């Protein structure tokens, strides 16, 4: 036990760094994924078969692009976008670099969530907005997004939690993070106690995100 504590003190700074790296990945990738995935999801919904403005041809193309990005295994996506990653962050290794493929992966993923959430809304309010002569933008901003907000927060919560474990793959290109820490020490170096510590931290992070997200979604929902 004393030995373990010594070891913990020893790797403490690295553990802290790893945790911070994961938080950093979340803080950058999730807002961008939400920020870009939401409009993309809105586009998919509004231009899709039941949308405000169904445009079958171009919808099929964008839908296909979303599918293509979602098809790539992470490792291959990471390699495939290396020129882009270098262009954006100037390097292809390290935490900053791995955030790029993580984000690229998460954008179309979140877009699907948003698309699905918008499809669940009561068509009546959209009708009302159309009757009021709202522009498409206004219908989206002032009606669809307003009523979909709780669902979108819920979906972002699901994605963020997925992301916490998924981002363990950051280790492939030196991105670090708490999941990678767990794998390196627990799996490769067989220091199970350290792995347990890392996993406990991940669980705590997940719990905070999940509980916070669920509360926030509930607070936004005014239907009861």
């Amino acid at each position: 036990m004393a030995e373990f504590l010594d070891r913990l003190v020893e790797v403490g700074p690295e553990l802290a760094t790893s945790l911070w790296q994961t938080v950093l990945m979340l803080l950058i990738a999730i807002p961008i994924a939400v920020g870009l995935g939401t409009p993309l999801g809105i586009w998919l919904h509004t231009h899709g078969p039941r949308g405000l403005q169904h445009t079958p041809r171009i919808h099929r193309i964008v839908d296909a692009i979303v599918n293509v990005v979602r098809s790539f295994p992470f490792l291959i996506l990471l390699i495939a976008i290396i020129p882009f990653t270098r262009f954006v962050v100037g390097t292809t290794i390290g935490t900053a670099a791995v955030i790029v493929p993580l984000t690229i992966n998460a954008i179309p993923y979140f877009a699907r969530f948003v698309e699905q959430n918008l499809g669940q809304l009561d068509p009546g309010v959209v009708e009302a907005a159309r009757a009021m002569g709202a522009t498409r933008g206004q219908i989206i901003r002032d009606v669809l997004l307003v009523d979909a907000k709780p669902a979108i927060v819920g979906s972002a919560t699901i994605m963020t939690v997925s992301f916490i474990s998924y981002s363990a793959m950051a280790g492939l290109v030196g991105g670090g993070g708490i999941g990678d820490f767990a794998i390196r020490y627990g799996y490769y170096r067989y220091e199970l106690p350290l792995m347990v510590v890392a996993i406990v931290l991940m669980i705590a992070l997940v719990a905070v995100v999940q509980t916070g997200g669920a509360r926030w979604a509930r607070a936004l929902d005014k239907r009861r």
Partner: protein
Amino acid sequence: MITLRDVTTVFSTPTGPYTAVDGAHLEIPAGSIQGIIGFSGAGKSTLLRNINLLERPTSGQVVVGGTDLTELSVEELRRARHGIGMVFQNFNLVNNLTAAKNVELSLKFAGVAGTERRRRALEALAIVDLADKADSYPAALSGGQKQRVAIARALATEPAVLLCDEPTSAVDPRTTTSVLQYLADINRDLGITTVIVTHEMNVVRALADHVAVMEAGRIVERFALAELEAGTFTPATAIGAHLVADEIVLDRRRTPVGAGVTPGEEAHHG
């Protein structure tokens, strides 16, 4: 001001096409109040939704203020709708917005500046006697209160045309009187052309200039309220007669409920 020419609306259903509106002709003079009555399912809501093209007719022309709406571009139609207010039968309020914000919505879409909106929304809510519920969400409103928010939302922009689908179905006589009084007032003062679908004959009597009676998608009867009041109008159809009479007389000593009831007999004894 509103002219419907041979308007037909066919829905496709799993069991084949269903004609909800069948060759409707209607001329509604500018500034007048047109009542539309008819049995449940006759096609009243569909016809009303045809006027602002929420439901685009399968065939026929819809001319509002001299423009054939069916020929407008999406953008033109959108602008045209700023001049056409609508109260929905089932209200269609945005659940996550307060009563005041719901009313502000129509003002926003009509281009009213932000600072002005709240004031006018509260004004509109006051007219339907809901100033105290301005900051309540729909979930915390009673049925009649929701309906009144929907009315306030349609009135707030003072549109040139107002389409009302059973706007007083959920409210008591006092509120009905107050809403109808307001409709009458704005009709007179601002010349707002109003189309009102209702099943309450007393609403028609109190407000309408002209009345159309629908049955099974067709407009089967048309009359001016003046004729009715002068006693010079006799309904040509049984439906017209029934609706105009507007009586509920129950036979409290009929044969017992149970086997052998045929739907037609049971339901159509009016």
